[in-house]
């Protein structure tokens, strides 16, 4: 292992208040139900945030309704666009501050929040800003209308990026929003609220209510919302689908995954190994589209695994703020417990577990990059979403078997294909029941590119022209 001197990013750029209220109707409102949010890498308390109750959620929804009816709805698209462009610029200007805060609150490596999350956040607002005055050309009829008030509930794995995926298309289409960030990662959303103030975004257009499951439930079930957008677990997604049944609320869901990453025998092995590593260890595997099932053609399985293990031994696990870190902290104690439970089940069910020698910090929540070989389709580690840095390796002999195994899951969010043969890529891509297929690459995202799943990975698409559809009355 090469030795690197520590290269920590300074956290001085982040000026945290000791305590945060809710962002309702353009103002921060103090609440009573305060909860600590911690840095998962150190367990140090970062700040206190308010968990919104039903009355708070109701106030936020009413503020959003008023803003929709009186300000944002009647506003010409070209002016809505300008606010979104302002937000995109402010995100770019304050991107380092946001990136450091994201890594502090989430545990993800600064290299990732700085180089992936924040550029995509700004790009997303910039992309949808341009749609705000072009909706009649989006292919949804000559005069598409917004829905009204959007209730948006987002996860902790890409806190600010998921906020951007939700808020940018909603506002571009002319809706107002009430957004609930995850309880373990509320801070960048609250900083985003400050950015809305800085942009002079009219009060009530964006409301941020922090809290946990009860806050989310109150928001989703509020009779005053016209649209529900949720990113998170399939289990909660189903509960939300039941909750909106029989209402007028339009629903889009972006849920779990158990993506197959298929490596054919003619794949460029070194590139494929980089793709496998990126597929499962990017963001500590806290990625719904993670390539968590490696399907490798039997004839090259030995070579691929040997190379993969060599590469894994070079992964640097540790301080998220260190610019050399590849794999950061697990987001919470609960998530760590879940990863441990499923990994233990993998061993108990007979799969072989391997991790590189890897020193983990004493404080905080950590899990070494792990692979399971000898996995069968019946094993829990092959069926359940682990949402951590744990890869299950299965083998196949024929392309038909690869497709069969890849599709043998209730999920259908993403998939990967590695081969040098173009016709085999297209043949395989046609047969995979997944919303995003990465061929000879993995985990690429772009605001113009629709993202979302088949089957129990949810419905609706985020990103691109398709992403507008969920926020328009079509």
């Amino acid at each position, binding site marked *: 292992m090469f030795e690197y001197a520590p290269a920590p990013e300074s956290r001085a750029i982040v000026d945290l208040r000791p305590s945060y209220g809710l962002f309702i109707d353009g103002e921060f409102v103090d609440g009573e139900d305060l909860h600590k949010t911690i840095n998962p890498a150190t367990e140090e308390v970062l700040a206190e945030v308010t968990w919104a109750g039903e009355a708070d959620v109701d106030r936020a929804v009413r503020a959003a309704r008023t803003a929709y009816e009186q300000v944002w709805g009647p506003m010409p698209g070209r002016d809505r666009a300008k606010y979104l462009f302002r937000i995109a610029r402010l995100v770019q200007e304050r991107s380092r501050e946001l990136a450091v805060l994201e890594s502090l609150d989430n545990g993800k490596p600064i290299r990732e929040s700085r180089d992936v999350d924040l550029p995509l956040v700004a790009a997303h607002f910039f992309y949808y800003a341009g749609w705000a005055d072009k909706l009649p050309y989006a292919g949804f009829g000559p005069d598409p209308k917004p829905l009204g008030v959007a209730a948006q509930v987002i996860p902790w794995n890409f806190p600010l990026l998921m906020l951007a995926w939700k808020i940018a298309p909603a506002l571009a289409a002319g809706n107002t929003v009430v957004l609930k960030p995850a309880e373990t990662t509320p801070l960048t959303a609250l900083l985003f609220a400050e950015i809305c103030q800085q942009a002079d975004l009219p009060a009530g257009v964006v409301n941020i209510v922090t809290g946990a499951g009860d806050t989310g439930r109150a928001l989703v079930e509020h009779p005053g919302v016209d649209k529900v957008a949720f990113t998170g677990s399939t289990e909660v997604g189903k509960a939300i689908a039941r909750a909106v049944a029989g209402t007028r609320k339009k629903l889009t869901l972006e849920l779990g995954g158990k993506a197959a990453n298929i490596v054919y025998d003619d794949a460029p092995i070194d590139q494929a190994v980089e793709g496998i590593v990126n597929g499962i260890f990017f963001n500590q595997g806290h990625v719904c589209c993670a390539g968590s099932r490696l399907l490798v053609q039997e004839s090259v399985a030995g070579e691929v695994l040997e190379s993969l293990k060599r590469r894994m031994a070079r992964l640097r696990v540790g301080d998220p703020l260190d610019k050399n870190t590849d794999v950061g902290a697990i987001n919470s104690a609960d998530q760590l417990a879940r990863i441990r439970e499923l990994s233990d089940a993998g061993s108990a069910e007979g799969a072989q577990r391997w991790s590189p020698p890897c020193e983990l910090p004493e404080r905080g929540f950590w899990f070494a990059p792990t692979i399971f070989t000898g996995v069968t389709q019946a094993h829990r580690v092959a069926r359940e979403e682990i949402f951590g840095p744990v890869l299950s390796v299965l083998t196949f002999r024929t392309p038909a078997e690869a497709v069969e195994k890849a599709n043998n899951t209730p999920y259908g969010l993403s998939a990967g294909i590695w081969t040098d043969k173009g016709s085999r890529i297209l043949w395989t891509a046609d047969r995979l029941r997944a919303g995003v297929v990465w*061929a000879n690459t993995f985990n690429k995202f772009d605001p113009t590119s*629709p993202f979302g799943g088949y089957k129990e990975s949810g419905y609706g698409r985020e990103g691109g022209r398709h992403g507008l559809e969920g926020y328009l009355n079509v």
Partner: protein
Amino acid sequence: MSERVAVRKTYKLFIGGKFPRSESGRSYLVQDSNVSLASRKDARDAVVAARAAAKGWAGATAYNRGQILYRVAEMLEGRREQFVALGVPADEVDAAVDRWVWYAGWSDKLPQVYGGANPVAGPYFNLSAPEPTGVVAAVAPETPALLGLVSVIAPAIVTGNTVVVAASPAAPLAAVTLAEVLATSDLPGGVVNILTGRLSETVPTLAAHMDVNAIDLTGVADAELAAELEVRAAENLKRVLRPAPADHDWHTDPGLTRMTTLLETKTVWHPKGT
């Protein structure tokens, strides 16, 4: 000289390209005829038939699917008088024929209108294309019995889905007769399956069925039942088309939503390089 005694028709279900009676052996008297009263088992059999047909139909070329839908229009046009004799207004039959023609043309155009290249910020080829979601369960509206039925079947199948449709319980004869049209239009067996009988018997089974990918509640007039069906559909996150408003005018432009709700968008990335 005695008058010729007419040969009466037995109205049966349409499952897997065949015309079976209900496995339950039951029928009900409606429109002066005995019509099969489909059971939950019939609904499950229909899903099996629809699933078996799904791969071939989704894999057929768009050109082929368009030709077959156009052929349905031809066959329906030829049986115009038969539907009129069943009490379907002539202008409704005409509108139903035209609707098949309209949807036939979408088979090879929707992927162009609804998908396409995405200009991502990097050296990647990136293409989004719609694909069928799979097996669709649909409830045809009570009226208009023929145009309403065609308006839920055609948008589901033109893109490559297969469908199990519950016909209007009060006016099922047009549905069974439409099945005869479909059976003579080169439509592969199982692409469209038609159940007659009580919605309360077949539709909850379809809504809860784990091998059904989407449910079209268009014809469910009872709001409480519609909500219950939507709850059942959440178990495997079926795509849901909610009930049409009671005053919906079926003669207007149907738009794309009936098709797009039953589609998945697949986006494929590939690096560019030498």
